[in-house]
């Protein structure tokens, strides 16, 4: 697809124009990590698109950790406003891919996710400097936006290369065409070279691939091999709440005045009561069963159901783990 070049000194103009249409969030560096911060014309604009994905995943924007989904008896749920996410990495796009399948991929469509998906525009960015915790390459992903996002940006010597990936992305460039010039072949070549370099770095970080029949191996493995790793697990749930592809939730009802508010809350399958039924039976009362379930869900079940792994290789689980459990080690050893 055609790419467009934006001069670095025009990035702020582009951002200002987008921010007039909705809230805009961009990655900014703080204490060695990037965080998505809200653009405010009054504050300095200091984006960082070189660093890996932000410390926090982006699922809040599409599927908030706590969100009202119904009021009872009279149903009234406030609409959300438009926003832009700038500089999202491909590992987080895999999260959106998983959510798209679960929330709008089959009937009934989740109207709240659908609304956010329509109102949150995603501009992804290449990921030129993978770090030791990254393993998107082991899940078949590349370190740049390949779809899902509306527009992808790549920093090259002559400026920032924008490639529309959806019709919405094309419209975004067309609306602001006065800021862009058509990219040249040399820009595309430089981008390819930078992408190759990033891919090579990923290969050097992760010298072993996961086995091709990972799904079958998870299903048929001696569960003890996965369960042994849980001896270290302290059930902090950081791996699940930090995960961009985990989509478990729980509905809770709360009294608010004369109404009851139905709230959707993030849930996590490591919680002991997660699968317990009213009568008390619990298919996963033991931690080792819950630990294995996480692998079964991500690498066997979701692959069978939707033909992709519910894992993006973002590495948040292993960096967040209190016990320093590295999911790669477990999967390599299957």
């Amino acid at each position: 697809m055609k790419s467009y070049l934006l001069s670095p000194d025009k990035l702020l103009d582009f951002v200002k124009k987008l921010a007039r249409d909705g809230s805009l969030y961009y990655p900014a560096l703080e204490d060695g990590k990037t965080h998505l911060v809200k653009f405010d014309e009054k504050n300095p604009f200091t984006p960082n698109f070189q660093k890996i994905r932000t410390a926090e995943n982006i699922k809040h924007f599409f599927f908030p950790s706590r969100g009202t989904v119904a009021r009872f008896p009279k149903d009234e749920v406030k609409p959300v406003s438009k926003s832009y996410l700038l500089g999202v990495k491909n590992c987080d796009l895999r999260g959106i891919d998983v959510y798209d399948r679960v929330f709008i991929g089959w009937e009934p469509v989740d109207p709240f996710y659908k609304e956010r998906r329509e109102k949150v525009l995603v501009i992804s960015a290449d990921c030129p400097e993978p770090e030791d915790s990254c393993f998107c390459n082991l899940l078949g992903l590349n370190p740049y936006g390949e779809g899902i996002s509306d527009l992808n940006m790549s920093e090259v010597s002559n400026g920032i290369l924008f490639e529309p990936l959806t019709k919405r992305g094309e419209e975004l460039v067309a609306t602001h065409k006065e800021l862009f010039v058509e990219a040249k072949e040399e820009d595309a070549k430089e981008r390819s070279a930078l992408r190759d370099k990033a891919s090579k770095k990923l290969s050097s970080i992760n010298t072993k691939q996961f086995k091709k029949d990972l799904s079958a191996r998870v299903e048929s493995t001696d569960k003890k091999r996965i369960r042994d790793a849980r001896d270290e697990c302290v059930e902090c749930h950081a791996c699940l709440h930090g995960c961009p592809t985990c989509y478990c939730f729980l509905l809770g009802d709360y009294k608010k005045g004369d109404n009851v508010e139905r709230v959707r809350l993030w849930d996590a399958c490591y919680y002991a009561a997660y699968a317990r039924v009213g009568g008390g039976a619990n298919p996963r009362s033991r931690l080792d069963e819950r630990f294995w379930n996480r692998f079964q869900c991500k690498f066997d079940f979701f692959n069978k159901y939707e033909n992709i792994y519910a894992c993006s290789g973002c590495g948040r689980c292993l960096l967040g783990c209190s016990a320093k459990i590295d999911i790669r080690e477990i999967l390599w050893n299957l």
Partner: protein
Amino acid sequence: MEPINPYYPIPVKIKKIIPETPNITTFILDGMPISFEAGQFAELTIPSIGEAPFTPSSSPYDDDLEFTIMKVGRVTDALFNLKEGDLVGVRGPFGKPYPLHDFKGKEVFIVGGGVGFAPLRSLFLALLHDIKAYKKIYIRYGARTPKDIVYKHLIPGWQKIKGVDLLLTVDVGDDSWQGRVGVVTVILDEIPVDVKTSPTVVCGPPLMMKFTTQKLVEVGFKHENIYLSMEKNMSCGLGKCNHCRVGKYYVCKDGPVLTWQDVKDIEEPFL
């Protein structure tokens, strides 16, 4: 048209409350807020407490929606404190119905345990609605004691229907009990149907499900003809929250009735 909010429960009043056993009660709602087929389930909301999944016990063709429910946890505790005229909420229907078109012309063998007879009653009433389409309906129902039998007032009438063969058993009898004694698998020693072609439908507590299924497999029912009601923790009912996932299924979306063929490779499928 406004999109339907699948999380919104339709408000409906409780029309009648019928105690069935010391801890099982039938709640008849005022009207039919959802259009369901036998085997599908609904989420029942108790305002400001929460919701839980139940399969209706009434016929899909009835004017009022009924649920026969056992008091076992937080939501059902609150439900049992409600009175006739109080408001509840209903979301649904969810999941897939029994494939009744595949049952036509065949003997249907139904096995229930305890409150598991509630969803089977809905199936039974749906079969009765078109009884001539089925060769014969067999019901084998086991309860813990005579006091724990649900639909005591209805069973004698059902037993008189031509084309219906209904046997009861209790684990432990009492002075008033003249019927069979023994767990439900005991009355499965004599299975009068053609096991090679007949569908069989099972619903009950986990242990009953386990041993009944073993028995049905043993006597020769085809694995794909053994229909099992899977009890799982369900929050959304829409195949999205992931709570009910078992093996390669979301029980709320792909079930709640799965066949033995579907679940036999799952470690402890009934837990």
